[in-house]
């Protein structure tokens, strides 16, 4: 009996320890895969400002399916393609967007994050970032099909670091296929969103 109680409390202690460590990661970058410098761009652009945005439906980490057409006539859409989960720049880009929710909403814009990783990977990765307010979509299968339709699938199967802004009519209003090694600046995106009809 006594031993049983000791074991139970010991298990609780181990549980507390595990909870503490999962929340207590204090230093960013420990889980990140170091890619080193990459070729800044490795794809052929197929989409330009003024084009109709290619339609897509992708599964979200939250479990729902998200279609671009869902926002037609209602909201502008900013799409953020990132190359891959657990890599340094990507792991900071979305947390930056995450504290700018009010700015996106002020400009009647929804943000969609897209990566070619699968749902379990994206689940674990985005959990590390904290609670994201915007949908994170897996362009995993057919692998990178949406990235390819937007002309941002690289030859090694990851996406470019790219931002597209699509207005309420489904027309592409901004394209930034960024140097994959660099962070696109939030203020540049906000400048574009502020110019869109609300």
């Amino acid at each position, binding site marked *: 009996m006594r031993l049983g109680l000791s074991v139970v409390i010991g298990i609780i202690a181990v549980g507390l320890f595990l909870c*503490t460590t999962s929340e207590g990661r204090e230093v960013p970058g420990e889980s990140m895969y170091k890619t080193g410098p990459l070729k800044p761009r490795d794809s052929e652009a197929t989409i330009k400002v003024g084009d109709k945005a290619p339609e897509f439906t992708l599964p979200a980490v939250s479990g729902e399916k998200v279609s671009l057409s869902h926002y037609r006539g209602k909201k502008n859409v900013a799409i953020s393609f990132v190359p891959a989960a657990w890599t340094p720049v990507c792991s900071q880009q979305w*947390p930056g967007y995450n504290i700018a929710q009010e700015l996106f909403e002020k400009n009647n814009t929804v943000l969609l994050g897209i990566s070619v990783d699968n749902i379990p990977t994206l689940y674990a990765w985005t959990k590390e970032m904290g609670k994201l307010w915007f949908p994170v979509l897996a362009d995993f299968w057919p692998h990178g099909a949406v990235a390819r339709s937007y002309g941002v699938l690289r030859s090694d199967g990851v996406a470019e670091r790219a931002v597209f802004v699509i207005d309420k009519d489904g027309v592409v209003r901004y394209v930034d296929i960024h140097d994959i090694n660099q*962070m696109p600046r939030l*203020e540049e995106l906000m400048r574009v969103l502020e110019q869109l009809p609300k």
Partner: protein
Amino acid sequence: MNRSITRAFVVAMVVLVVAAPARGADPITVMGEPLSRLEFAIPEDAADKAYLGLSGAGVFRLPQVKAEVIIIEVFSMYCPYCQREAEHVNSLFAKIRDHQALKGRVKLIGIGAGNTPYEVELFRKKFSVPFPMVSDHQMTIQSTADEKFRTPTFIVVKPEGGSGLKIMYTHVGKLGELDEFLKKILF
């Protein structure tokens, strides 16, 4: 029964102590001389200027800050760990502000590593940061250390001789218990 509870408690504590991870990462070695030469834009906000003891416009260096000790938080708006730590750092500011012996002697300043002024301002507004935060868009802070800065990093310095800085303490990651942190760094 009491003995068994006591024994169970001891078992639990032993497990916790043995299993508990070390808090914080290895400290970074920061060089005071290059840090003292970095220049940042003088804040426009009058309250920020008054807090730092600065006036006018243009740029300032850290040794110009009117303080006996400066706690520098190197952060990034894009860093989720800095975001999670923001409220706790605000509490550190409040603790110092409300402490009779420390008030006015110990100052906090945030340096937005690689962040534009827009990004620094967004972070500051989002987390209602009460102390001044400056932009270091060009990441000049990196010139003060041989290893890559991780965020958040806290550097505690003492201004010396009008233009120098003595590095007293560095800490990478979460601050942990604030009283313990203050004990480590002060006087």
